[in-house]
């Protein structure tokens, strides 16, 4: 082992009964670099990090881990943290009702002379750590009052308090907006200057290109290659090829639009905040979508994208809703989700774990959840038909699971998303609203989702896609609306749309947006 390497994982093999999750995987990380790990969902990235951090203790895997020139075998997370390896998971592990300082020192409390916690000392040390991560917050603030971006920084501050040498971040920017992502990546560079090595797992290739020194690609539990990002051949296409094992010539499948009659029109849609009655979340928004058309809704976080979609979908969000919805030219009244489904609307949520799936239930029952009436006669469900329907969707959407009796909580993000789509396809909707349909899923699965969208519009359905990824909207939509401060600020046919143009409309000042809406 080269003395410039901080970590070497040698031919790691990890088997679960029946599955070889990792096979002969090797990973070398140099001291002070930012090392990216790429791979499709289920490729084994998380398993590898769990082996490294001691979640899977020494002895349950084959191979060797050498850290700082010494062979190590961690029995638990505490062991690896003791050596300065800290992992920050995608789902943050902060306690919402404790203060920032309490969270930072949780399990590692700052003691005074006796057994009691010295809060003054803890808070002042926390303030120093917060300054290091560039977060201007009071250490006594409750974590629940902070956004996801700031919470992420608190996790890093917590890692710093443990004298971290190797920081592992699992999809750190998946839930962050652009500004917060920029800040986080800047912080990683800053930490690198201070000698902290980072491993970052990410699906965002442009982010990896921007920040990583080297990238290791994992596919099907094996290492494919480690690329030096300074190399001029280290293109995004090369990484994608390594991840999916084939050339993905186009990231967005081809489609020739065949646009028909208008299916859904929403007019003067105004929604108030559910608890703050005088706060207008959506202000006189109007939009329409036609059969065979994919319409995008672009907006920054907090612009009201999800709120607009959910309030239209059976008033699932907000209060004091006013406005009109026309379906096939006729005024309809949609008072709850059941009626929305009855009118042929479907809404696939951006947060599949919290709002989309029953994670303890199997694929079959998740797929039938919204269209259960179609399987039932006089209130009794035909269980055999249910399995048949689920099997059909498993095959047609390529959901990777041994049977439809597999529990959805154990599927990868891409496959979970396909289950959510299957659930809504089974209701046979005319209008499908997809809220961030490709969030947190890998390139291959994204392509599959786009293909499904194309099939739906080819079948004459109307699709509305909400997304924060502008290239995605430009790649799959026919027309894009922009949303800012709850107001529709623009409508651009995709042929005339550029990322710059959309971004301009999405970031219109509050006052200008108000004028536009009226």
């Amino acid at each position, binding site marked *: 082992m080269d003395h410039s390497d901080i970590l070497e994982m040698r031919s790691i093999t990890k088997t*679960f*009964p*029946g599955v070889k999750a990792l096979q002969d995987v090797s990973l070398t990380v140099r001291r002070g670099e930012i090392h990216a790990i790429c791979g499709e969902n289920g490729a084994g990235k998380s398993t590898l990090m769990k082996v490294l951090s001691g979640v899977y203790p020494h002895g349950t895997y084959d191979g060797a881990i050498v850290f700082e020139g010494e062979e190590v075998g961690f029995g638990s997370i505490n062991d690896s943290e003791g050596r300065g390896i800290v992992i920050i998971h995608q789902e943050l592990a902060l306690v919402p009702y404790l203060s920032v300082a309490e969270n930072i020192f949780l399990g590692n409390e700052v003691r005074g002379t006796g057994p009691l916690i010295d809060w003054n000392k803890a808070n002042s040390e926390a303030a120093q750590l917060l300054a290091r991560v560039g977060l201007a917050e009071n250490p006594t603030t409750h974590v629940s009052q902070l956004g996801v971006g700031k919470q992420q920084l608190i996790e890093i501050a917590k890692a710093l308090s443990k004298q971290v040498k190797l920081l592992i971040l699992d999809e750190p920017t998946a839930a962050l907006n652009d500004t917060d992502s920029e800040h986080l990546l800047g912080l990683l560079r800053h930490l690198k200057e201070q000698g902290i090595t980072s491993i970052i797992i990410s699906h965002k290739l442009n982010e990896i290109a921007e920040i990583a020194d080297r990238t290791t690609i994992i596919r099907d539990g094996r290492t494919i290659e480690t690329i030096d990002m300074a190399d001029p051949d280290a293109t995004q296409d090369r990484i994608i090829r390594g991840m999916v094992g084939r050339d993905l010539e186009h990231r967005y499948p081809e489609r020739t639009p065949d646009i028909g009659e208008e299916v859904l029109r929403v007019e003067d849609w105004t929604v108030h905040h559910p608890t703050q009655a005088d706060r207008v979340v959506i202000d006189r928004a109007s939009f329409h979508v036609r059969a065979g058309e994919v319409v995008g809704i672009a907006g920054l976080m907090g612009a009201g994208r999800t709120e607009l979609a959910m309030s239209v*979908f*059976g008033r*699932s969000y907000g209060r004091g809703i006013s406005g009109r919805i026309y379906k096939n030219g006729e005024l309809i009244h949609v008072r*709850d*989700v*059941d009626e*929305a*489904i009855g009118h042929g609307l479907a*809404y696939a*949520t951006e947060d599949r774990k*919290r*709002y*989309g*799936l*029953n*994670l*303890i*239930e199997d694929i079959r*029952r998740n797929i039938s*959840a*919204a269209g*259960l*009436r179609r399987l*039932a006669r006089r*209130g*009794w*469900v035909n*269980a*055999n*038909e249910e*399995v*048949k329907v689920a099997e059909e969707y498993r095959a047609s959407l390529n959901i990777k699971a041994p049977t439809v009796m597999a529990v959805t909580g154990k599927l990868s993000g891409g496959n979970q998303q396909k289950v959510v789509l299957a*659930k809504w396809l089974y209701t046979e909707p005319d209008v499908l609203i997809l809220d961030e349909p490709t969030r947190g899923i890998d390139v291959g699965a994204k392509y599959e989702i786009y293909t499904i969208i194309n099939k739906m519009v080819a079948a004459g359905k109307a699709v509305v896609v909400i997304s924060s990824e502008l290239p995605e909207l430009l790649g799959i939509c026919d027309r894009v609306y922009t949303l800012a401060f709850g107001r529709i600020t623009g409508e651009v046919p995709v042929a005339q749309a550029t990322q710059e143009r959309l971004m301009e409309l999405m970031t219109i000042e509050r006052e200008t947006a108000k004028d536009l809406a009226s």
Partner: protein
Amino acid sequence: MTAIAGFSEMVTRNLRQSGIFAAFVLIVLLFSLLNSNFLSPGNLTNIVLQYSYILILAIGMVMVIVLGQIDLSVGSVVALTGAVAAVLVIRNGAPWWVGALAALAVGGLVGMWQGFWVAYVGIPGFIVTLAGMLLFRGMTYRVLDNVSLSPFGGTYYDVANGFSTNGWFGGYGVDVFTLVIFGLAVVGYAVSQWRTRMGRIAYQQVVESMPIFVAKIAVVAVVVMAFGYQLAQYRGLPNILILLAVLILAYSVITQRSVFGRHIYAIGGNLNAAQLSGVKVRKVTFWTFVNMGLLAGVAGVVFSSRMNGAQPSAGNMFELDAIAAAFIGGASTTGGVGRVTGAMTGALIMAVMSNGMQLMGVPQSIQQMVKGLVLLLAVAFDVWNKRRADAR
């Protein structure tokens, strides 16, 4: 292609269910070895009569628990409904069925009251039913004017103590009618299993291999007929067993095959996702509590009939028996998981243990301790089992 599953695969796939069933069989074997009277005709009949109220309550309770709620008030509701029936029948001389219907109506109203607060006001079931526990206990004292009422006698008494079909087909020492009914039940079971199997094959799903399928039915047939024969030797078929069979069958089908039942599981598994899938969460929650109230009313009639009277303190701690039965039977504390058949096995474990220990003269104090430990171990087994499944 129709897949065939072998025996060991069936067992591992259903370890939670088969585990609890194996535990039940072991407990029965243990007590039958410890006490020769345990499997006697008289005692088997006694178990059915004595603990039927736990089974009835556990049916409703497992549904409430799957919904992600809990009902602490059922013991008080059993007392209140029994008291109402007693006042009508014993004090005012009303016919038995008026008392029984009034008890059911009161149970339903209690369910509506609690369902309203939980579903439409959004107060957790734990709080609403904790309040209900006090409220309905207090009402029981008012209704009964702080005194016990007895005896019911007549038909009301026969609800939980009678054997009204006994002797219809005659017989020497054994009741032929009982055997015929049990025989029909076995045939019905075999036919329904066969039809399910055929349906699954038609839809190309996994089924057990033929020998296992036949063996399973044979084992069930032998056990059921042995139980029936023992009952027939004593006084025949208790009324209460007919009621229980109907309730268990009906609610198994409702929970597994009706849209309403499936919505309960959807809400317990993920309330937000259920709501966004068009499930009318409030309505389903409301009716689940109404159903619990109604079943508590049924249990109230059964228990007061069994006691041949109503006491202000009746039904004390029944809620804990019913909740324990549901959890021993595999229900999850966080909702979304649990089955009527599991809760019935759990309730039978509670019943058999109580009865067995009583036969052996184990003091009440030890009985309580043993029951507590069984509950703890059953849930610990569940947790261990889940962890093992997750690690794979």
